[in-house]
C-alpha cells in the first residue's frame, strides 16, 4: 500500500494546476457562458498535449488513468469551459477501437471528439455532451459502435441548447455526418462500456476538483462574513456541516484515485469502482456547493458571486448520465452478483418440519 503520488505525478498535477489557474480564470468561465466553450482555451489545452495524453503511447499518449484523473481534478477546480472528460474518454475509445484516422485529428485538438452517453432515440442522439462543439461523436447504436463525423468548421456547429449547467450540449441527428462503424456485437458493447467508464472516472475527478474549490469559497466566506457580531464560521451549525463535507471530499478523492489505480492495474472491479466514484463524487460535489450557497445567505443566489457557477455545474455535469438512481441499480447488479444458492436447503427443512 502506498497512497502517495510519484514525483512525476506531483509535477504533472502542479503543471495543470498552474495552467488552469492562469488560463481558466473565473472571468473566462463567465465570458464563455452560456455556451460553456472557450475555443482559445481548447486550443491551448490541446497544445499542452493534455488531450493526446490519454491515447496509447504509439499515438502520442501513454498516460495512466491516474494521470488523467489528476489533470481532470485541476480542470474541475477551475470549471474550465472545455470538454476535458468527454474528449478524453472519446479519444481513448476511438484508439481502442482502432480508428487510427479519427484519432490523428483528435490528438492535436483539431478534431474535438465526444461520447454520447445514451443510445439514440427517434433518429437522434439526445443532449450529447459537447455535442454543439464536437466534430466526432462516438455512440452505441444497437449492436454497433459508431462514430458520426461532421465537417470541420467554426465552433459551435449547432445552436447551443440553453441549460443551467452552461454545457455545450446539443442533439445530434444520426443523419448528421458520415457514419463509421467502429465495432459490432459484444466487442462494441465492451468498448462502449469502457468508454463510459472512463467518462465516469474523469467526471468523478472533475467533480472532486469542483467541490474542493467550492469548499474553499464557502470556508473563506464564513471566515469573513459576520453576523451577530461574530464570524459565521464560529457557529457550530456551520462548522459541523463543513466538517462533514471535508471528510466526504477526502473519501471521494480516495475512491476516485482507487478507481483509477484499479483501471491501471486491470482489476476486475475497476468499472464498479469508477461507477461508485462517480456517484459519490456527484453527491458530495452537489452537497458542498449547496451548503456553500446556503452559507452565503442572500448573496448565494446573486449571479455576481462565483459560488453559483459551481452550484449549477455540480448538479448539471453528472446529470449527463441520466438519473443517478439508475446508475445505482446497474451498480448493484455488478457488486451483488447472483451466486449459487448454497444456503437453499428449503425442501430438506420442509421435510424435517413434517416429521
Amino acid at each position, binding site marked *: 500500500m502506498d*497512497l502517495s503520488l510519484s514525483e512525476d505525478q506531483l509535477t504533472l498535477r502542479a503543471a495543470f494546476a498552474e495552467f488552469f489557474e492562469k488560463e481558466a480564470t473565473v472571468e473566462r468561465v463567465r465570458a464563455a457562458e452560456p455556451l460553456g466553450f472557450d475555443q482559445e482555451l481548447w486550443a491551448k489545452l490541446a497544445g499542452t498535449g493534455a488531450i493526446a495524453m490519454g491515447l496509447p503511447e504509439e499515438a502520442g499518449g501513454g498516460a495512466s488513468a491516474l494521470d488523467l484523473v489528476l489533470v481532470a481534478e485541476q480542470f474541475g477546480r477551475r470549471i474550465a469551459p472545455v470538454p476535458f472528460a468527454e474528449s478524453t474518454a472519446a479519444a481513448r475509445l476511438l484508439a481502442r477501437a482502432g480508428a487510427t484516422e479519427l484519432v490523428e485529428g483528435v490528438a492535436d485538438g483539431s478534431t474535438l471528439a465526444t461520447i454520447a452517453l445514451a443510445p439514440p432515440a427517434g433518429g437522434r442522439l439526445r443532449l450529447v455532451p459537447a455535442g454543439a462543439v464536437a466534430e466526432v461523436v462516438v455512440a452505441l447504436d444497437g449492436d454497433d459502435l459508431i462514430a458520426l463525423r461532421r465537417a470541420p468548421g467554426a465552433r459551435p456547429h449547432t445552436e447551443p441548447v440553453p441549460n443551467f449547467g452552461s454545457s455545450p450540449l446539443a442533439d445530434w441527428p444520426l443523419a448528421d455526418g458520415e457514419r463509421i462503424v467502429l465495432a459490432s456485437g459484444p466487442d462494441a458493447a465492451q468498448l462502449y462500456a469502457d468508454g463510459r467508464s472512463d467518462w465516469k472516472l474523469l467526471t468523478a475527478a472533475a467533480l472532486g476538483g469542483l467541490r474542493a474549490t467550492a469548499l474553499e469559497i464557502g470556508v473563506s466566506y464564513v471566515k469573513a462574513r459576520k453576523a451577530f457580531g461574530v464570524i459565521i464560521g464560529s457557529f457550530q451549525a456551520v462548522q459541523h456541516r463543513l466538517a462533514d463535507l471535508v471528510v466526504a471530499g477526502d473519501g471521494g478523492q480516495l475512491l476516485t484515485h482507487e478507481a483509477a489505480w484499479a483501471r491501471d492495474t486491470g482489476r476486475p472491479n475497476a468499472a464498479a469502482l469508477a461507477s461508485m466514484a462517480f456517484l459519490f463524487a456527484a453527491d458530495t460535489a452537489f452537497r458542498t456547493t449547496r451548503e456553500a450557497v446556503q452559507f452565503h445567505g442572500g448573496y448565494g443566489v446573486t449571479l455576481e458571486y462565483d459560488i453559483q457557477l459551481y452550484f449549477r455545474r455540480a448538479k448539471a455535469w453528472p446529470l449527463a448520465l441520466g438519473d443517478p438512481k439508475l446508475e445505482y441499480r446497474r451498480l448493484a447488479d455488478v457488486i451483488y452478483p447472483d451466486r449459487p444458492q448454497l444456503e437453499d436447503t428449503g425442501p430438506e427443512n420442509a421435510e424435517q418440519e413434517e416429521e
Partner: protein
Amino acid sequence: MDFAEVDRLADYRQQAREWVATHVDPAWAEQQRVSGSYHTPALHALLAEQGWLGAGWPAEYGGTGNDPDMAAALFEEIDAAGLHMDGWATTNMIARTLLHTATEEQKAAIVGGVLRGEIIIVLGYTEPDSGSDVAAAKTRSERDGEEWLINGQKMFTSTAHLGTHVFMLTRSNLEVSKHKGLTTFLVPLDSPGVEVRAIHTLGGQRTNATFYSDVRVPDSARIGPVDGGWGVMHVALVFERGGGGGRRSGPTLAERVAQWAKSARREDGSRVYDDPSVKERLARIAAEAEVARLLGLRTAWIASTGGLPGTEGSSAKLFNAESLQRQHWELLEILGAEAVLRREAGDAPLNAAVEEDFRRGVVGTIYGGSSEIMREIVSERVLGLPRSRSKN
C-alpha cells in the same frame, strides 16, 4: 499509488485458525452474547498461560518470546469467531500507557501481572456529568498522609465486574484550572468502598456504574505526578484511538442482505431484490462502505510511514461510524416487517445479524470521541475555523 493491501499476517492465519479450533469453546461466544460481558476469563487465562499476552513486550517487564505477529493473528481469529476481548483491550491500553508514565517499581509490579493475566484493568474516565468533556471529571482524590482518599462515581466502567483494577481520572486540586487539577490512579477494584452496579445497553452489552466511597489507596497507586493527570491522559487517549479495524472476513452484512433479498419474496410474490429501491440502497451502502474503508486505509498508511494521523483518524472515525448507522437503518428496512425479530424468535432473517448490528452500532457515534467532537477537530484543525465553545 498502490491501493493493494498486503496481509502482513497471511503466513499466520492458518495456524491461528487451528489454535482457535483447538482451544476456543464454541459456547463462549454465545455466553458473551447472552450475558453482554465481553470478556471470557478462561480465554484470557489461556492466552496468558501460553505467553500470547506478553508477545512483543519488553522482557524486563514480563514480555514473552512469543511471536507478536502470531499473537495479532490469533486475536483477529478470536474476533472472527465472534468473541470480544474487551478486558484485554483496556488492560493492554493502560499497560502501554504505564510504560510511558509509571515509575520503574510500578511497571515491574503491574505490567508483569498484566502479562501473566492476573491483572485486568478497566477504564474510569467517564462520569455521570462528563463524557466527551473528559477533563471535567469531578471524582475527588484527597491526600491523607501516605494515602489517598477517593470519592465519586464513574460511568461505563465496562468489565469492572470481572476486572481487578480501574484506571481512574480524579480531581486532586480544586484551586487550579480544569486541566491542571487532575491526577490518575490505578485502584484495586476489591478495595473497601468500591461498588459495581450493572448497566445494560441497547446493544446488549453489560457495562457498569462504579461508586467510590472513602476508598483508600497508597500513594504507590498514583500514576504520574500529582495534578499531572492530564499529561497521563494524553498518552492514554493516544492508545485508545490506536485500535485498528479488524480484518474483513467473510461476506459483509450488505452482501448477506443482498443474498437474502435474491431469494426472499414479498407478499405480492415479487422478489425483494427486484425492487429498484432495494438495489439503489444496497449499491449506495457499498459505495459508502468503500469510502469508509479507504479513509481507514489512509489512517493506517500514514501511521505505517511514521506519521501521526490526527485529523485523518478523526475523519475516518466520523465517516465510518456515521455511515455504518445509515447502513443498518437501510438494511433493516429492506428486511421489512421481520427485521425486528430477535435471534430468540428462531426464524429471524439472517439469524438477527442486522438487528444486532443495528443496536450495537448506536454507540459507534458516541464512544471513542463522539461525532460532534470529531467534527470539531476537523473544523478547527483542517479548516482553521475558530473554536466554537468556550475554552474552560
